[in-house]
């Protein structure tokens, strides 16, 4: 058990080093990301401010609270993009037989899929996330107590796992359909809408969907409501949401890895 853990850590760290070296081979690409990503997210928060200033608070959420919510969602997105970006390209791997090589190595296939590419450029995604979140904490009056920091870490881990589970499950569909490129775009839009705005402004049907079926409400909405003491204005659940998020994350992740294993059996490789 310990030696197998060491084995996986040693391979993962080597892969991380190689991934960084590979990305440094193309510095201009890196630079263009550095430019584009912050523009995208800062314009997102600017839009929110315009909406709230011109009209009214969104379902009882004012601008500071919305900033906090948006920042929390962005950070978990940023970390997800660093570690799990390969789940976005599973359909390519199915079509061109990319899983062949992973299956020929004496290690877990899902681990190889994820660990073989650490997208450290994704850290750039985190920069606006962290800035927006810290600003949100400041203006919304978030209390930096040890308990809150612990909860925050749990929420982030849970949120990343929920995202990973969602994209893994969507990617697994490619084992049957061979193509699912547009699913990734669709899921990203859905995630942005559900993590950037308060879930309670949506009709009951969507709230239930994003709570129980595709539980992305746990990524940022429910935890933010608890951290800020906002009435989430929607569904009531017992216990602290900060504890629900990691639990939901772990359950989703386990289900997704089961789906992945099942899909793998259906893998047909590619010709030649």
């Amino acid at each position: 058990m310990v030696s197998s853990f060491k084995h996986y850590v040693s391979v993962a760290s080597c892969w991380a080093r190689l991934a960084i070296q590979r990305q440094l081979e193309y510095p201009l690409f890196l630079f263009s990301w550095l430019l584009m990503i912050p523009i995208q997210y800062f314009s997102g928060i600017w839009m929110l401010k315009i909406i709230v200033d011109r009209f009214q608070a969104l379902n009882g959420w004012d601008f500071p609270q919305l900033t906090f919510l948006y920042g929390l969602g962005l950070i978990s997105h940023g970390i997800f993009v660093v570690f799990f970006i390969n789940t976005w390209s599973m359909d390519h791997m199915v079509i061109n037989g990319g899983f062949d090589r992973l299956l020929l190595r004496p290690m877990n296939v899902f681990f190889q899929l994820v660990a073989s590419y650490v997208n450290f450029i994704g850290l750039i995604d985190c920069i606006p996330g962290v800035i927006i979140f810290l600003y949100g904490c400041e203006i919304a009056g978030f209390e930096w107590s040890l308990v809150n920091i612990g909860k925050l870490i749990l929420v982030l881990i849970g949120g990343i796992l929920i995202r990973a589970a969602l994209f893994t499950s969507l990617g697994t569909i490619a084992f049957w359909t061979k193509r699912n490129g547009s699913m990734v775009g669709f899921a990203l839009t859905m995630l942005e809408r559900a993590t950037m705005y308060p879930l309670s402004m949506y009709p009951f049907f969507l709230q239930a969907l994003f709570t129980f079926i595709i539980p992305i409400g746990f990524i940022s909405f429910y935890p933010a409501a608890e951290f800020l003491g906002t009435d989430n204005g929607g569904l009531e659940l017992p216990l602290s949401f900060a504890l629900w998020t990691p639990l939901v994350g772990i359950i989703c992740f386990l289900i997704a890895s089961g789906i992945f294993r099942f899909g793998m059996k259906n893998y047909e490789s590619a010709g030649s």
Partner: protein
Amino acid sequence: MDAVIEVNDLVKEYIIVKKESGLRGSLKSLLFPKKTKFNGVNGISFSIAPGEIVGYIGPNGAGKSTTIKMLTGILHPTAGSIKVCGISPQADRKAVVRKLGVVFGQRTQLYWDLRLGESFELLRRIYQINQAEYEQNLAILTDVLKLQDFINTPVRQLSLGQRMRGDIAAAMLHSPSVLFLDEPTIGLDADAKLAIRNFIKEINRTRGVTVILTTHDLDDVEQLCSRIIVVNNGKIVEDGPIESIIHKLTPHRMLVVELQKPCADLSTPNAIVIKQEGLKIWYQFEKEAISASELIAALSQKLPIQDISVKEPNVEDAIREVYKTTSSV
């Protein structure tokens, strides 16, 4: 000795949706798909002993790659059993793949943007090769495959021959006992082919590595393989030592005679004229029926001969013969 690879009644079934042409056809096959079952591999059995070099050959689409992918645990068979080193790749994939080296000639496992050596370091960790064994293997591989010239070059700058040598080295680092080579000499020049053939002979002789080779290059087969398995339409059509297959399939030899002047009567017992071009005549004869010298003696008494040559059948003829006779099934 126990077999390294034991395959029994292996079947892989694919479901094919028959497409019809045009938009109407596309809509029709979307709503009412005509699914047909098709056995890519249809009841294959063979066993391979340690230290053999086996050529696994067949025309495109015969089921070669599908078989290799089932043997290496990439695909799950529909029916039948596989044992590699006594273990089923479907039951314990990780245990089996530790003992295998696999090279796909058309695809690389090396990192395109990085030095060749970086990919080796990753493999050292993946296969948990201890440092002493790794260094020893790398030294041997470097020596035989002449890697020293390009081990520090990014893979994208390597020539195809260099890249293939790199890929073969990568597959051998963890001292596998079975090596699968899927078209390892495809697109290579004569020098690179020679280097790779020598390497295969070398590891087979010194380390007793069992080699399974799929290729369309019959020179590879002729020079390396003691045994060939020929597949077509998902079935094994020939399995045995290369000489006996050639002999069995093409027992004929050819005598090409060039005459000084045209002659009307060309017939001779035990040989038939199969082609005639001006003064050149091709006689086909059976090894068992008559020897070449007897035939030449008989002909020279009858015809004014200018020049003469004997053609032996080769692997290529034999294989073409197999493909021809089994494709119409």
